[in-house]
């Protein structure tokens, strides 16, 4: 048990930051989707780390993690489907071009 909880959290923070950066800066919609997946995983890592170090008797955190992973899978499937639909419409997956919500 040489690795302290803080390290996990820092790793998780770094992952989240990387994901955030990707989501905010990249133009390709698929890359943005991948970056969001990264941020997801940072959250799941946090969940598991806390569960491990605080030793809660229940399996709640594990269950949450599994749920989150499965939902993320479903979400990315939906996201990819959307991206494909967008691509069919715009002939591009550049997020900057998708601004028909402009006020």
């Amino acid at each position, binding site marked *: 048990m040489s690795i302290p909880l803080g390290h996990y959290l820092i790793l998780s923070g770094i992952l989240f930051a990387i994901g955030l950066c990707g989501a*905010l800066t990249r133009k390709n919609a698929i890359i*943005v989707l991948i970056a969001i997946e990264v941020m997801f995983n940072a959250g799941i890592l946090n969940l598991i780390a806390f569960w491990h170090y605080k030793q809660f008797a229940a399996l709640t955190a594990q269950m949450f993690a599994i749920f989150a992973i499965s939902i993320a899978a479903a979400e990315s499937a939906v996201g990819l489907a959307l991206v494909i639909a967008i691509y069919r419409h715009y002939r591009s997956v550049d997020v900057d071009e998708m*601004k028909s*919500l*402009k*006020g």
Partner: protein
Amino acid sequence: MEQLQHLAAQQWLIPFFPLLAAAIQSLLKREQRKLSAGLAIGALSLSCFVALRAFWGTMDGGHGGEHHEVERAIWNFTWLKYGYNGSLDIGFILDPLTAGMAAMVTFVGLMIFINATGYMAEDENFTRFFCFMSLFAAAMLGLVVANNLLLFFICWELVGLCSYLLIGFWFFKPSAAAAMKKAFITTRIGDIGFFLGILTLYWQTGTLNLYDHGRGALEQADKLAQIGGWWIFSMAGLIAVLLFFGAMGKSAQFPLHVWLPDAMEGPTPVSALIHAATMVAAGVFMVGRMFPLFTAGAVEGGSTPALDFVMWIGCFTAVFSATIAVGQFDIKRVLAYSTCSQLGYMVMALGAGGLVAGQFHLLTHAFFKALLFLGAGSVIIGTHHEQDMRKMGGLRKYMPITFACYMVGMLALSGVPPFAGFFSKDEVLLVTYHRSKLAWGLATFAAFLTAFYMTRQICMVFFGKWRGGEREGEHEKEHEAKHEHEQEKEHEKQHEEDGHGHGDHEPHEIPWNMWMPIAVLSVFAVVLGFFGTPFIGGNLFHRYVAPGEYMPEGGTGTVMVLSIAVGALGILFGCLIYGRKPMEHADEPDPLAKPLGGLFTCLNRKWYIDELYEATIIRLTMACGVLFRLIDELVIDGILHTIVWLTRAISQFFRWVGDEFFINGGFDTACDSVRDSGGLLSRLQNGRVQNYFRVLSIGAAVLLVIYFLKLNQ
């Protein structure tokens, strides 16, 4: 007494009928002539009936003789309430004075109305004429039955208004238009005094009711006489004199007599109504009605300053107007000045303390003066609208009925026994004799003049030969010479108006509906005097009007003999000068013109009173008018224009600075800012998902930082 009370409560009916008739007539169309005349006559007949019933009632109340109180019934009601306990009353009265007067006004008025249907038959405004006449009668009757100065004043002014309307009935004639204004303004000058008198009376007594069971104004007259008024007058005397100014205007006393002769411009029935039954009678009646105020403070049969003032004004007017009448040529003007003079008699009698004498002369005079005026009207109609006596003559042969009636009127006016005028005039002279020998002498001289000018008139109009034929020739010549469009029109109009089918220009007798009333009046002119003779039953009229009132004793014989003598003398002189050698031509000078010289011109020009007024009062008024106009234009208009200019400048300033700059500018700026900020904010919504996400992240980061900072505290 109870029956009298019952009758008093019906007094309002007397003026009500003609008033109602006038209201209906004012809505009639011009063509409904018969209906209009019928309404007027019918309404006045009803009034006459009510008035006669009331008259009978008051005579009944006399209990056949020995009572010393005047039977008087009143009927007051509150008309208007104001303040906490203030109120204005209106009331009607029934006493011998009112009853006699109302009976006279309705009866004489009725005769005049009937005559007017003939006189005005050709006038296109027949309907309007009778409407005014009804209103006139209503106003006069209202005045007679009023027991309240407020009602009295309202009716008084209505009488003035109606005289204005009727004198100017032919308002297309400039002279008539001028006369109507003159009558209205002159009487109005007197009315100022009248109104001041009413106000003073109200101020002193707090009531306008004349009789009110001890609380009325006249019943407090003795109390008022104790209060000092002004100069030699007590408070009662002051009020009386102020009120008398109104009577001077209405009854044409010197110096406010000038309107009366000019009032001849109206149709002749109007002249008859004004000069006999209504307008001029109103003034004398008013003095009679207010008599307690005039006599207040006097010992039995004594005089007061107010009474002396009244007497001398009357005396002067009587002589003054009689002299003018001698120098006139217009048939109606002679009668007008004669009216003036006779009114002077009545006023003088009242001033001498003879309430009964004044009122009796008023009544008899109303009958024979109405008779004379209607007679003059017939002459005018008969001679195709000729009023100049020099162009008449010999009418005795052409108009016998008119002549007979006119003779009766003339004899009555001249004071020949046993006609009505003799007895009433005799009584006037008698009361004056007991008060002042000088006034009596002057009045006797006036009686001589009266007989003289009436004889002159009779001689010029009815005797001699017909001189009217010359007039036509003259007119024709005038026409050819001048060819003035207007005159021609007037002439044509006159012809249309005459239009009673006369090819020749001979005078003709009048139709029956005109001579019938005249005949009735002449009967009264004969018999009426007997009610006031000292011979039969000790003067019935006196006992009726004012039982127990002071009546001077003695002197009857002297006065009567002298008055008969001067009357006879006047007629004799008249016959000698005018009757013996009648005028041959219309343009011949008056026989008196040569011996009297300048004096006659003076008489003919009415002592230049009109010219005097023109030169003094009217010029002064005009100058004041010009001055005030200048003040108006320079000062008031100047101030006004400055204010206007300032206001405009200020508003202009506010328009530029306040409105356009601040308000408009402010709103514009505010709107622009809102629009700009909207544009600015809308830029945030650029539709880029990443952008939203970025903002979201930054927000979350900021919240996180705040959270940690809080946690570390």
